[in-house]
Protein backbone atom coordinates (compact mmCIF):
# COMPACT_ATOMS: atom_id res chain seq x y z
CA UNK A 1 0.00 0.00 0.00
CA UNK A 2 2.72 2.34 1.11
CA UNK A 3 4.84 1.37 -1.87
CA UNK A 4 1.95 2.06 -4.19
CA UNK A 5 1.47 5.52 -2.78
CA UNK A 6 5.16 6.19 -3.20
CA UNK A 7 5.07 4.98 -6.78
CA UNK A 8 2.02 7.06 -7.54
CA UNK A 9 3.73 10.11 -6.09
CA UNK A 10 6.83 9.39 -8.13
CA UNK A 11 4.88 9.00 -11.33
CA UNK A 12 2.99 12.20 -10.61
CA UNK A 13 6.29 14.01 -10.10
CA UNK A 14 8.20 12.57 -13.00
CA UNK A 15 6.72 14.42 -15.96
CA UNK A 16 7.02 17.70 -14.10
CA UNK A 17 10.67 17.03 -13.38
CA UNK A 18 11.39 15.95 -16.93
CA UNK A 19 9.95 19.09 -18.43
CA UNK A 20 12.39 21.87 -18.99
CA UNK A 21 12.71 24.39 -21.76
CA UNK A 22 14.80 23.52 -24.76
CA UNK A 23 16.89 25.16 -27.45
CA UNK A 24 16.89 23.44 -30.84
CA UNK A 25 19.91 23.92 -33.06
CA UNK A 26 20.43 22.96 -36.72
CA UNK A 27 23.85 21.56 -37.64
CA UNK A 28 24.65 22.48 -41.21
CA UNK A 29 27.38 19.88 -41.87
CA UNK A 30 26.32 16.92 -39.75
CA UNK A 31 22.73 17.14 -41.08
CA UNK A 32 21.27 16.93 -37.60
CA UNK A 33 19.23 18.89 -35.10
CA UNK A 34 20.61 19.06 -31.53
CA UNK A 35 18.31 19.71 -28.59
CA UNK A 36 19.78 21.50 -25.56
CA UNK A 37 18.19 21.40 -22.12
CA UNK A 38 18.06 25.01 -20.88
CA UNK A 39 18.45 24.03 -17.21
CA UNK A 40 21.29 21.53 -17.42
CA UNK A 41 22.89 23.15 -20.50
CA UNK A 42 23.49 19.76 -22.04
CA UNK A 43 22.52 18.19 -25.33
CA UNK A 44 19.66 15.81 -24.57
CA UNK A 45 18.60 14.70 -28.04
CA UNK A 46 19.80 14.64 -31.60
CA UNK A 47 17.72 14.05 -34.75
CA UNK A 48 18.93 13.18 -38.22
CA UNK A 49 17.34 15.42 -40.81
CA UNK A 50 17.78 16.37 -44.48
CA UNK A 51 20.95 17.75 -46.03
CA UNK A 52 22.41 21.03 -44.83
CA UNK A 53 19.73 22.17 -42.37
CA UNK A 54 19.94 25.91 -41.75
CA UNK A 55 16.88 28.01 -40.89
CA UNK A 56 14.59 26.35 -38.33
CA UNK A 57 11.39 27.46 -36.59
CA UNK A 58 8.47 26.00 -34.67
CA UNK A 59 4.81 26.00 -35.57
CA UNK A 60 2.84 28.35 -33.30
CA UNK A 61 1.74 25.42 -31.09
CA UNK A 62 5.33 24.06 -30.91
CA UNK A 63 4.17 20.65 -32.14
CA UNK A 64 6.14 20.80 -35.37
CA UNK A 65 9.60 21.99 -36.28
CA UNK A 66 10.09 23.36 -39.78
CA UNK A 67 13.58 22.85 -41.17
CA UNK A 68 15.15 24.45 -44.23
CA UNK A 69 17.11 21.48 -45.58
CA UNK A 70 19.02 23.56 -48.12
CA UNK A 71 20.73 20.78 -50.08
CA UNK A 72 17.63 18.55 -50.03
CA UNK A 73 15.71 21.44 -51.60
CA UNK A 74 12.90 20.95 -49.11
CA UNK A 75 11.37 22.34 -45.97
CA UNK A 76 11.01 19.35 -43.68
CA UNK A 77 8.43 19.02 -40.93
CA UNK A 78 9.55 17.25 -37.78
CA UNK A 79 6.89 16.01 -35.36
CA UNK A 80 8.28 16.98 -31.96
CA UNK A 81 6.36 14.34 -29.97
CA UNK A 82 7.19 11.50 -32.34
CA UNK A 83 10.72 12.79 -32.90
CA UNK A 84 10.76 12.16 -36.63
CA UNK A 85 10.26 13.86 -39.95
CA UNK A 86 6.66 13.38 -41.03
CA UNK A 87 6.72 15.04 -44.42
CA UNK A 88 8.44 17.57 -46.67
CA UNK A 89 6.92 20.80 -47.86
CA UNK A 90 7.60 22.06 -51.35
CA UNK A 91 10.03 24.92 -50.93
CA UNK A 92 11.69 25.78 -54.19
CA UNK A 93 15.43 25.39 -54.58
CA UNK A 94 17.94 25.87 -51.78
CA UNK A 95 15.80 27.23 -48.97
CA UNK A 96 17.99 29.04 -46.44
CA UNK A 97 15.80 31.10 -44.12
CA UNK A 98 12.08 31.43 -43.72
CA UNK A 99 9.44 33.13 -41.62
CA UNK A 100 6.03 32.03 -40.41
CA UNK A 101 3.01 34.28 -40.90
CA UNK A 102 1.26 35.17 -37.59
CA UNK A 103 -1.73 33.13 -38.82
CA UNK A 104 0.49 30.08 -38.39
CA UNK A 105 -0.42 28.84 -41.84
CA UNK A 106 1.84 30.45 -44.40
CA UNK A 107 5.57 29.99 -44.66
CA UNK A 108 7.65 32.55 -46.53
CA UNK A 109 10.82 30.91 -47.80
CA UNK A 110 13.91 32.53 -49.31
CA UNK A 111 15.28 30.44 -52.18
CA UNK A 112 18.90 31.45 -52.33
CA UNK A 113 19.75 29.99 -55.76
CA UNK A 114 16.58 31.04 -57.55
CA UNK A 115 16.16 34.68 -56.56
CA UNK A 116 12.57 34.06 -55.49
CA UNK A 117 10.58 34.03 -52.30
CA UNK A 118 8.20 31.07 -52.13
CA UNK A 119 4.93 31.18 -50.17
CA UNK A 120 3.83 27.74 -48.95
CA UNK A 121 0.62 26.75 -47.20
CA UNK A 122 1.61 24.45 -44.33
CA UNK A 123 -1.86 22.87 -44.21
CA UNK A 124 -2.45 22.04 -47.87
CA UNK A 125 1.31 21.68 -48.60
CA UNK A 126 0.89 23.77 -51.73
CA UNK A 127 2.94 26.60 -53.11
CA UNK A 128 0.68 29.63 -53.16
CA UNK A 129 2.98 32.09 -54.83
CA UNK A 130 6.55 32.72 -55.91
CA UNK A 131 7.73 36.30 -55.82
CA UNK A 132 10.73 37.43 -57.84
CA UNK A 133 13.19 39.24 -55.60
CA UNK A 134 16.86 40.28 -55.79
CA UNK A 135 19.78 37.89 -56.27
CA UNK A 136 20.51 35.46 -53.41
CA UNK A 137 17.59 36.14 -51.09
CA UNK A 138 18.26 35.12 -47.51
CA UNK A 139 16.87 37.12 -44.59
CA UNK A 140 13.13 36.67 -44.03
CA UNK A 141 10.71 38.32 -41.64
CA UNK A 142 6.95 38.77 -41.43
CA UNK A 143 5.61 41.85 -39.67
CA UNK A 144 3.65 41.13 -36.45
CA UNK A 145 0.41 42.34 -38.10
CA UNK A 146 1.05 39.93 -40.95
CA UNK A 147 0.71 42.54 -43.67
CA UNK A 148 4.31 42.80 -44.78
CA UNK A 149 7.00 40.25 -45.52
CA UNK A 150 10.64 41.22 -45.84
CA UNK A 151 13.18 39.43 -47.99
CA UNK A 152 16.77 40.63 -48.01
CA UNK A 153 18.87 39.74 -51.03
CA UNK A 154 22.56 39.21 -50.39
CA UNK A 155 23.87 40.26 -53.80
CA UNK A 156 21.37 42.97 -54.73
CA UNK A 157 21.92 44.48 -51.26
CA UNK A 158 18.28 45.32 -50.76
CA UNK A 159 15.45 44.70 -48.36
CA UNK A 160 12.31 43.95 -50.39
CA UNK A 161 8.99 44.88 -48.79
CA UNK A 162 6.29 42.45 -49.92
CA UNK A 163 2.55 42.99 -49.48
CA UNK A 164 1.24 39.68 -48.14
CA UNK A 165 -2.22 40.17 -49.65
CA UNK A 166 -1.11 40.67 -53.22
CA UNK A 167 2.29 38.94 -52.89
CA UNK A 168 3.96 41.80 -54.72
CA UNK A 169 6.89 44.00 -53.76
CA UNK A 170 5.73 47.47 -52.79
CA UNK A 171 9.08 48.94 -51.75
CA UNK A 172 12.81 48.28 -51.91
CA UNK A 173 15.37 49.79 -49.62
CA UNK A 174 19.11 49.73 -50.20
CA UNK A 175 21.26 48.48 -47.37
CA UNK A 176 24.99 47.81 -46.99
CA UNK A 177 26.63 44.85 -48.70
CA UNK A 178 25.28 41.33 -48.15
CA UNK A 179 22.18 41.72 -45.99
CA UNK A 180 21.57 38.42 -44.21
CA UNK A 181 18.92 38.83 -41.59
CA UNK A 182 15.82 40.92 -40.91
CA UNK A 183 13.93 41.30 -37.65
CA UNK A 184 10.80 43.30 -36.77
CA UNK A 185 10.29 44.93 -33.39
CA UNK A 186 7.38 43.41 -31.44
CA UNK A 187 5.08 46.34 -32.25
CA UNK A 188 6.06 46.18 -35.92
CA UNK A 189 7.09 49.81 -36.06
CA UNK A 190 10.74 49.17 -36.87
CA UNK A 191 12.77 46.74 -38.93
CA UNK A 192 16.36 45.73 -38.21
CA UNK A 193 18.50 44.50 -41.12
CA UNK A 194 22.08 43.22 -40.73
CA UNK A 195 24.68 43.55 -43.51
CA UNK A 196 27.44 40.97 -43.31
CA UNK A 197 30.09 42.51 -45.57
CA UNK A 198 29.06 46.09 -44.88
CA UNK A 199 29.54 45.31 -41.20
CA UNK A 200 26.49 47.31 -40.18
CA UNK A 201 22.95 46.97 -38.94
CA UNK A 202 20.34 49.38 -40.34
CA UNK A 203 17.06 50.22 -38.62
CA UNK A 204 14.06 51.27 -40.71
CA UNK A 205 10.79 52.92 -39.89
CA UNK A 206 8.21 50.49 -41.27
CA UNK A 207 5.52 53.09 -41.96
CA UNK A 208 7.55 54.91 -44.63
CA UNK A 209 10.56 52.57 -45.03
CA UNK A 210 12.93 55.38 -44.09
CA UNK A 211 16.20 54.61 -42.38
CA UNK A 212 16.30 55.69 -38.73
CA UNK A 213 19.80 54.66 -37.80
CA UNK A 214 22.76 52.61 -38.83
CA UNK A 215 24.99 50.89 -36.32
CA UNK A 216 28.66 50.11 -36.93
CA UNK A 217 30.71 47.86 -34.70
CA UNK A 218 34.24 48.10 -33.46
CA UNK A 219 35.88 45.49 -31.28
CA UNK A 220 39.29 46.16 -29.73
CA UNK A 221 41.86 43.75 -31.09
CA UNK A 222 39.65 42.42 -33.89
CA UNK A 223 40.26 43.38 -37.53
CA UNK A 224 37.26 45.34 -38.90
CA UNK A 225 36.96 42.88 -41.83
CA UNK A 226 36.06 40.17 -39.38
CA UNK A 227 33.13 42.07 -37.96
CA UNK A 228 30.31 40.54 -40.00
CA UNK A 229 26.84 40.97 -38.50
CA UNK A 230 24.41 38.15 -39.24
CA UNK A 231 21.79 37.18 -36.66
CA UNK A 232 19.80 39.89 -34.85
CA UNK A 233 17.53 39.23 -31.85
CA UNK A 234 15.53 41.68 -29.75
CA UNK A 235 14.73 40.92 -26.11
CA UNK A 236 11.14 40.62 -24.87
CA UNK A 237 10.59 44.31 -24.11
CA UNK A 238 12.71 45.33 -27.13
CA UNK A 239 15.01 47.42 -24.95
CA UNK A 240 18.12 45.56 -26.07
CA UNK A 241 19.20 44.03 -29.35
CA UNK A 242 21.82 41.31 -29.73
CA UNK A 243 23.79 41.12 -32.95
CA UNK A 244 25.89 38.07 -33.85
CA UNK A 245 29.11 39.32 -35.45
CA UNK A 246 30.26 36.22 -37.39
CA UNK A 247 34.02 35.56 -37.52
CA UNK A 248 34.80 38.28 -34.98
CA UNK A 249 33.50 35.69 -32.47
CA UNK A 250 31.56 38.31 -30.55
CA UNK A 251 27.93 39.20 -29.93
CA UNK A 252 27.16 42.92 -29.66
CA UNK A 253 24.64 44.19 -27.11
CA UNK A 254 22.85 47.27 -28.45
CA UNK A 255 20.68 49.77 -26.61
CA UNK A 256 17.61 50.14 -28.83
CA UNK A 257 16.82 53.64 -27.57
CA UNK A 258 20.18 55.20 -28.41
CA UNK A 259 21.45 52.60 -30.93
CA UNK A 260 24.71 52.52 -29.03
CA UNK A 261 26.69 49.35 -28.53
CA UNK A 262 26.84 48.66 -24.80
CA UNK A 263 29.02 45.58 -24.75
CA UNK A 264 30.69 42.87 -26.80
CA UNK A 265 30.47 39.31 -25.52
CA UNK A 266 33.11 36.75 -26.50
CA UNK A 267 31.60 33.51 -27.85
CA UNK A 268 32.84 30.71 -30.15
CA UNK A 269 34.11 30.95 -33.69
CA UNK A 270 31.87 32.33 -36.44
CA UNK A 271 28.71 33.08 -34.59
CA UNK A 272 25.63 32.88 -36.84
CA UNK A 273 22.33 33.03 -35.03
CA UNK A 274 20.86 33.22 -31.56
CA UNK A 275 17.83 32.22 -29.50
CA UNK A 276 16.64 33.42 -26.09
CA UNK A 277 15.76 30.94 -23.38
CA UNK A 278 11.97 31.15 -22.92
CA UNK A 279 12.43 32.87 -19.52
CA UNK A 280 14.56 35.53 -21.22
CA UNK A 281 17.56 35.16 -18.90
CA UNK A 282 19.96 33.49 -21.33
CA UNK A 283 20.95 33.80 -24.95
CA UNK A 284 22.18 30.80 -26.95
CA UNK A 285 24.50 31.48 -29.90
CA UNK A 286 25.39 29.04 -32.68
CA UNK A 287 29.13 29.09 -33.40
CA UNK A 288 29.63 27.58 -36.85
CA UNK A 289 33.37 26.94 -37.02
CA UNK A 290 33.90 25.86 -33.43
CA UNK A 291 30.87 23.56 -33.56
CA UNK A 292 29.34 24.64 -30.31
CA UNK A 293 26.64 26.78 -28.75
CA UNK A 294 27.68 29.50 -26.28
CA UNK A 295 25.34 30.43 -23.47
CA UNK A 296 25.30 34.10 -22.47
CA UNK A 297 23.98 35.08 -19.06
CA UNK A 298 22.02 38.23 -19.88
CA UNK A 299 22.23 39.62 -16.35
CA UNK A 300 26.01 39.97 -16.59
CA UNK A 301 26.49 39.80 -20.40
CA UNK A 302 29.07 37.07 -19.97
CA UNK A 303 29.33 33.73 -21.72
CA UNK A 304 29.01 31.07 -19.05
CA UNK A 305 29.37 27.89 -21.05
CA UNK A 306 29.93 26.55 -24.54
CA UNK A 307 28.15 23.33 -25.40
CA UNK A 308 29.45 20.97 -28.10
CA UNK A 309 26.78 20.21 -30.69
CA UNK A 310 27.00 18.83 -34.25
CA UNK A 311 29.28 20.17 -36.99
CA UNK A 312 28.68 23.77 -38.06
CA UNK A 313 25.64 24.74 -36.00
CA UNK A 314 23.63 27.43 -37.78
CA UNK A 315 20.03 28.08 -36.71
CA UNK A 316 18.63 28.19 -33.17
CA UNK A 317 15.12 28.34 -31.82
CA UNK A 318 13.63 28.01 -28.32
CA UNK A 319 10.91 25.59 -27.30
CA UNK A 320 9.11 26.34 -24.03
CA UNK A 321 7.73 23.19 -22.47
CA UNK A 322 5.48 24.64 -19.79
Amino acid at each position, binding site marked *: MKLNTCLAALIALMPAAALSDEIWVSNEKSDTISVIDVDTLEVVKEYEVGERPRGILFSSDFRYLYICASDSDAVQVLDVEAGKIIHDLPSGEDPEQFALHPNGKLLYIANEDDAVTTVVDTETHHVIAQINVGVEPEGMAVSPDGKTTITTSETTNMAHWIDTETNTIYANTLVDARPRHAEFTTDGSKLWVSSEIGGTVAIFNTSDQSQIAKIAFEITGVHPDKVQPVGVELNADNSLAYVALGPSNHVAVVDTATYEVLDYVLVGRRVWHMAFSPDGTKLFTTNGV*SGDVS*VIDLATNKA*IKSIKVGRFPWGAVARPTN
Partner: protein
Amino acid sequence: MTCLKAIIIRELLRFLHQRERFLAALVRPLVWLFIFGAGFRAALGLSIIPPYETYIRYETYIVPGLCAMIVLFNAMQSSLSMVYDREMGSMRLLLTAPVPRWWILLAKLLASALVSALQCVVFLAIAWVFDIRMQWGGYLALLPALFLVGLMLGAMGLFLSAMISRLQNFAGVMNFVIFPMFFLSTALYPLWRMQENAPHIAAVVVWNPFTYAVELIRFALYQRLEPVALLWVCVCTIGFFSLSLFGYDPKKPFSKAKVG
Protein backbone atom coordinates in the same frame (compact mmCIF):
# COMPACT_ATOMS: atom_id res chain seq x y z
CA MET B 1 53.31 30.70 19.66
CA THR B 2 54.73 34.04 20.71
CA CYS B 3 57.52 33.42 18.32
CA LEU B 4 55.05 32.78 15.47
CA LYS B 5 53.17 35.94 16.33
CA ALA B 6 56.34 37.98 16.45
CA ILE B 7 57.56 36.72 13.10
CA ILE B 8 54.20 37.28 11.42
CA ILE B 9 53.92 40.79 12.84
CA ARG B 10 57.47 41.55 11.80
CA GLU B 11 56.78 40.35 8.27
CA LEU B 12 53.50 42.25 8.04
CA LEU B 13 55.10 45.41 9.39
CA ARG B 14 57.92 45.08 6.94
CA PHE B 15 55.33 44.69 4.19
CA LEU B 16 53.32 47.71 5.31
CA HIS B 17 56.30 49.95 5.92
CA GLN B 18 57.91 49.27 2.60
CA ARG B 19 55.31 50.99 0.44
CA GLU B 20 57.58 50.83 -2.59
CA ARG B 21 57.83 47.12 -2.23
CA PHE B 22 54.06 46.79 -1.99
CA LEU B 23 53.61 49.02 -5.01
CA ALA B 24 56.23 47.14 -6.99
CA ALA B 25 54.62 43.85 -6.11
CA LEU B 26 51.33 45.20 -7.42
CA VAL B 27 52.57 47.04 -10.48
CA ARG B 28 54.46 44.03 -11.83
CA PRO B 29 51.41 41.78 -12.41
CA LEU B 30 49.30 44.73 -13.51
CA VAL B 31 51.81 45.61 -16.21
CA TRP B 32 51.64 42.01 -17.40
CA LEU B 33 47.88 41.99 -17.27
CA PHE B 34 47.24 45.13 -19.23
CA ILE B 35 50.25 45.50 -21.50
CA PHE B 36 51.36 41.96 -22.16
CA GLY B 37 47.72 40.89 -22.11
CA ALA B 38 46.78 43.38 -24.82
CA GLY B 39 49.76 42.56 -26.99
CA PHE B 40 49.50 38.81 -26.82
CA ARG B 41 45.79 38.33 -27.25
CA ALA B 42 46.37 35.88 -30.08
CA ALA B 43 48.67 33.69 -28.00
CA LEU B 44 45.80 31.80 -26.48
CA GLY B 45 44.08 30.89 -29.73
CA LEU B 46 40.57 29.64 -29.51
CA SER B 47 39.92 26.49 -27.62
CA ILE B 48 38.26 25.51 -24.41
CA ILE B 49 40.43 23.83 -21.79
CA PRO B 50 39.37 22.86 -18.28
CA PRO B 51 38.51 24.46 -15.92
CA TYR B 52 37.03 26.93 -18.39
CA GLU B 53 33.62 26.13 -19.78
CA THR B 54 33.60 28.67 -22.57
CA TYR B 55 35.91 30.91 -24.58
CA ILE B 56 37.91 33.39 -22.53
CA ARG B 57 40.05 36.43 -23.16
CA TYR B 58 43.81 36.20 -22.78
CA GLU B 59 43.64 38.63 -19.87
CA THR B 60 41.34 36.21 -18.05
CA TYR B 61 43.68 33.32 -18.81
CA ILE B 62 46.78 34.92 -17.29
CA VAL B 63 45.15 36.09 -14.03
CA PRO B 64 45.91 32.82 -12.11
CA GLY B 65 49.48 32.82 -13.44
CA LEU B 66 49.96 36.40 -12.32
CA CYS B 67 48.66 35.53 -8.84
CA ALA B 68 51.26 32.77 -8.74
CA MET B 69 53.84 35.30 -9.92
CA ILE B 70 53.00 37.59 -7.01
CA VAL B 71 53.48 34.69 -4.63
CA LEU B 72 56.73 33.67 -6.33
CA PHE B 73 58.27 37.15 -6.11
CA ASN B 74 57.13 37.55 -2.56
CA ALA B 75 58.59 34.20 -1.56
CA MET B 76 61.87 35.12 -3.20
CA GLN B 77 61.89 38.51 -1.51
CA SER B 78 61.27 36.81 1.80
CA SER B 79 64.17 34.44 1.23
CA LEU B 80 66.29 37.41 0.23
CA SER B 81 65.51 38.93 3.59
CA MET B 82 66.72 35.72 5.22
CA VAL B 83 70.08 36.15 3.54
CA TYR B 84 70.05 39.77 4.63
CA ASP B 85 69.16 38.80 8.19
CA ARG B 86 72.03 36.39 8.19
CA GLU B 87 74.49 38.97 6.93
CA MET B 88 73.27 41.59 9.39
CA GLY B 89 73.23 39.24 12.33
CA SER B 90 69.59 39.43 13.30
CA MET B 91 69.34 35.82 12.25
CA ARG B 92 71.47 34.89 15.20
CA LEU B 93 68.93 36.48 17.52
CA LEU B 94 66.12 34.50 15.95
CA LEU B 95 67.95 31.23 15.96
CA THR B 96 68.93 31.54 19.57
CA ALA B 97 65.27 31.84 20.56
CA PRO B 98 64.23 28.96 22.80
CA VAL B 99 62.02 27.30 20.21
CA PRO B 100 62.77 24.52 17.73
CA ARG B 101 64.43 25.67 14.52
CA TRP B 102 61.75 24.10 12.31
CA TRP B 103 59.16 26.12 14.15
CA ILE B 104 60.96 29.38 13.40
CA LEU B 105 61.29 28.49 9.73
CA LEU B 106 57.66 27.44 9.55
CA ALA B 107 56.55 30.70 11.16
CA LYS B 108 58.59 32.56 8.58
CA LEU B 109 56.83 30.57 5.83
CA LEU B 110 53.35 31.20 7.21
CA ALA B 111 54.09 34.91 7.49
CA SER B 112 55.26 35.24 3.91
CA ALA B 113 52.36 33.15 2.59
CA LEU B 114 49.97 35.48 4.40
CA VAL B 115 51.58 38.55 2.90
CA SER B 116 51.44 37.03 -0.61
CA ALA B 117 47.76 36.20 -0.22
CA LEU B 118 47.08 39.80 0.80
CA GLN B 119 48.86 41.10 -2.28
CA CYS B 120 46.88 38.76 -4.52
CA VAL B 121 43.61 39.96 -3.02
CA VAL B 122 44.50 43.56 -3.87
CA PHE B 123 45.58 42.52 -7.38
CA LEU B 124 42.32 40.64 -7.98
CA ALA B 125 40.31 43.60 -6.71
CA ILE B 126 41.97 45.83 -9.30
CA ALA B 127 41.36 43.23 -12.02
CA TRP B 128 37.72 43.11 -10.90
CA VAL B 129 37.40 46.85 -11.43
CA PHE B 130 38.63 46.29 -14.99
CA ASP B 131 35.92 43.71 -15.60
CA ILE B 132 38.04 40.61 -15.17
CA ARG B 133 35.71 38.91 -12.76
CA MET B 134 35.23 35.48 -11.24
CA GLN B 135 32.43 34.14 -9.11
CA TRP B 136 32.53 34.90 -5.38
CA GLY B 137 32.87 31.21 -4.58
CA GLY B 138 35.96 31.16 -6.75
CA TYR B 139 37.60 33.94 -4.76
CA LEU B 140 36.87 32.04 -1.54
CA ALA B 141 38.22 28.76 -2.90
CA LEU B 142 41.28 30.64 -4.08
CA LEU B 143 42.44 31.65 -0.59
CA PRO B 144 43.49 28.17 0.65
CA ALA B 145 45.09 27.50 -2.75
CA LEU B 146 47.07 30.75 -2.56
CA PHE B 147 48.17 29.95 0.94
CA LEU B 148 49.34 26.49 -0.03
CA VAL B 149 51.22 27.82 -3.04
CA GLY B 150 52.70 30.47 -0.74
CA LEU B 151 53.99 27.73 1.52
CA MET B 152 55.47 25.78 -1.38
CA LEU B 153 57.27 28.72 -2.98
CA GLY B 154 58.26 30.03 0.44
CA ALA B 155 59.81 26.67 1.30
CA MET B 156 61.65 26.77 -1.99
CA GLY B 157 62.89 30.26 -1.13
CA LEU B 158 64.08 29.07 2.27
CA PHE B 159 65.95 26.26 0.65
CA LEU B 160 67.59 28.69 -1.76
CA SER B 161 68.47 31.10 1.03
CA ALA B 162 70.18 28.26 2.84
CA MET B 163 72.33 27.74 -0.22
CA ILE B 164 73.13 31.36 -0.94
CA SER B 165 75.96 32.80 1.04
CA ARG B 166 75.86 36.40 -0.04
CA LEU B 167 73.24 38.98 -0.86
CA GLN B 168 74.87 39.74 -4.21
CA ASN B 169 74.16 36.23 -5.40
CA PHE B 170 70.50 37.00 -5.35
CA ALA B 171 70.64 38.39 -8.88
CA GLY B 172 71.56 34.89 -9.92
CA VAL B 173 68.40 33.61 -8.29
CA MET B 174 66.38 36.00 -10.40
CA ASN B 175 68.06 34.74 -13.57
CA PHE B 176 68.22 31.07 -12.85
CA VAL B 177 65.14 30.48 -10.73
CA ILE B 178 62.38 33.07 -11.01
CA PHE B 179 62.40 33.70 -14.74
CA PRO B 180 62.75 30.11 -15.95
CA MET B 181 60.16 28.96 -13.44
CA PHE B 182 57.69 31.57 -14.55
CA PHE B 183 58.21 31.27 -18.29
CA LEU B 184 58.43 27.48 -18.31
CA SER B 185 54.99 27.12 -16.81
CA THR B 186 51.37 27.37 -17.87
CA ALA B 187 51.12 30.90 -16.45
CA LEU B 188 51.25 32.67 -19.81
CA TYR B 189 50.34 30.01 -22.34
CA PRO B 190 48.32 26.82 -22.09
CA LEU B 191 50.20 23.55 -22.21
CA TRP B 192 48.64 22.43 -25.51
CA ARG B 193 50.07 25.52 -27.22
CA MET B 194 53.55 24.60 -26.01
CA GLN B 195 53.10 20.99 -27.04
CA GLU B 196 52.14 22.16 -30.50
CA ASN B 197 54.96 24.66 -30.97
CA ALA B 198 57.78 23.48 -28.76
CA PRO B 199 57.37 19.90 -27.47
CA HIS B 200 60.75 19.94 -25.69
CA ILE B 201 59.82 22.97 -23.68
CA ALA B 202 56.43 21.44 -22.96
CA ALA B 203 58.21 18.45 -21.44
CA VAL B 204 59.93 20.81 -19.00
CA VAL B 205 56.68 22.63 -18.27
CA VAL B 206 55.09 19.34 -17.23
CA TRP B 207 57.81 18.83 -14.58
CA ASN B 208 57.91 22.41 -13.30
CA PRO B 209 56.35 22.62 -9.83
CA PHE B 210 55.34 26.19 -10.61
CA THR B 211 53.03 24.85 -13.35
CA TYR B 212 51.11 22.97 -10.69
CA ALA B 213 51.01 26.03 -8.45
CA VAL B 214 49.45 27.97 -11.34
CA GLU B 215 46.97 25.21 -12.17
CA LEU B 216 45.95 24.77 -8.53
CA ILE B 217 45.16 28.49 -8.39
CA ARG B 218 43.44 28.42 -11.80
CA PHE B 219 41.13 25.55 -10.90
CA ALA B 220 40.39 27.02 -7.46
CA LEU B 221 39.31 30.29 -9.07
CA TYR B 222 36.67 28.26 -10.92
CA GLN B 223 35.70 26.37 -7.79
CA ARG B 224 37.29 23.16 -8.89
CA LEU B 225 39.98 21.00 -7.35
CA GLU B 226 42.80 19.69 -9.47
CA PRO B 227 44.06 16.66 -7.48
CA VAL B 228 47.31 16.21 -9.41
CA ALA B 229 48.26 19.84 -8.85
CA LEU B 230 47.34 19.59 -5.19
CA LEU B 231 49.50 16.50 -4.77
CA TRP B 232 52.47 18.08 -6.54
CA VAL B 233 52.23 21.26 -4.51
CA CYS B 234 52.03 19.34 -1.24
CA VAL B 235 54.92 17.03 -2.14
CA CYS B 236 57.09 19.97 -3.21
CA THR B 237 56.24 21.93 -0.06
CA ILE B 238 57.27 19.08 2.17
CA GLY B 239 60.32 18.36 0.05
CA PHE B 240 61.63 21.92 -0.03
CA PHE B 241 60.89 22.43 3.64
CA SER B 242 62.80 19.31 4.64
CA LEU B 243 65.72 20.39 2.48
CA SER B 244 65.79 23.85 4.01
CA LEU B 245 65.63 22.37 7.52
CA PHE B 246 68.65 20.34 6.57
CA GLY B 247 70.28 23.43 5.09
CA TYR B 248 69.73 25.49 8.21
CA ASP B 249 71.03 22.78 10.47
CA PRO B 250 74.31 24.25 11.81
CA LYS B 251 75.79 20.81 12.28
CA LYS B 252 75.34 19.81 8.65
CA PRO B 253 75.43 23.03 6.69
CA PHE B 254 74.15 22.56 3.19
CA SER B 255 76.69 24.87 1.68
CA LYS B 256 79.66 26.65 3.03
CA ALA B 257 77.42 29.46 4.17
CA LYS B 258 77.81 30.14 7.82
CA VAL B 259 74.72 30.79 9.83
CA GLY B 260 75.03 33.94 11.87
